[in-house]
């Protein structure tokens, strides 16, 4: 049981680093750098780097939530956390699930249009790029309390 929980927690943390690491790469590095990149070099980002980063980003999000829920279930506190009886971890779990929903159902569909990975009206691309950016920023904002909540479950702040 202890070994099983260790492995699930380890996979949860590994997936989380993959997810939040790429989220912060997008927000701290790629988005602010785009205006400084010459137009002829921008396809390297839009056609090569961003699609690859988005692949690891969305599956990182999926497996972070998957292993997180599995960890809570196997530890016996899943329902209590989701009902906020264990508010420390419960709030973080809800924030993480909202963020993963944003990744899969808002950011990823919008990015597919913005990056030209699916057929769409050209006029729609800037609108979808802005939507993806705003929800990516929303996730960056939520990642700060989410990570605090995750840590406070084992190291209470107050």
């Amino acid at each position, binding site marked *: 049981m202890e070994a099983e929980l260790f492995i699930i927690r380890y996979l949860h943390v590994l997936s989380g680093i993959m997810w939040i690491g790429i989220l912060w790469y997008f927000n701290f590095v790629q988005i602010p750098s785009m205006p400084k990149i010459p137009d002829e070099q921008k396809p390297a980002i839009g056609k090569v780097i961003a699609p690859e980063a988005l692949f690891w980003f969305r599956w990182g999000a999926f497996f972070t939530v998957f292993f997180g829920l599995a960890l809570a279930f196997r530890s016996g506190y899943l329902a209590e956390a989701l009902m906020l*009886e264990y*508010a*420390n971890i419960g*709030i973080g779990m809800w924030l993480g699930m909202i963020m993963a929903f944003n990744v899969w159902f808002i950011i990823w569909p919008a990015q597919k249009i913005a990056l030209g990975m699916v057929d769409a009206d050209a006029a729609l691309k800037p609108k979808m790029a802005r939507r993806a950016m705003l929800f990516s*920023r929303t996730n960056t*904002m939520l*990642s700060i*309390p989410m990570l605090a909540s995750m840590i*406070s479950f084992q190291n209470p702040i*107050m």
Partner: protein
Amino acid sequence: MGKILESLPLTIVAGVVLTVVMIFATEAINDSQMSAPEKAVSDVMNSM
């Protein structure tokens, strides 16, 4: 909200503010779920 999210520094500030709000909200939720004896013990522990 859109103006805050367009700015990375403001996004970070908003995240820190949310964290502080969350810490107090968590404390309030935990307190509301404690029985009177548990609350008394918790208060003593916090004052040590």
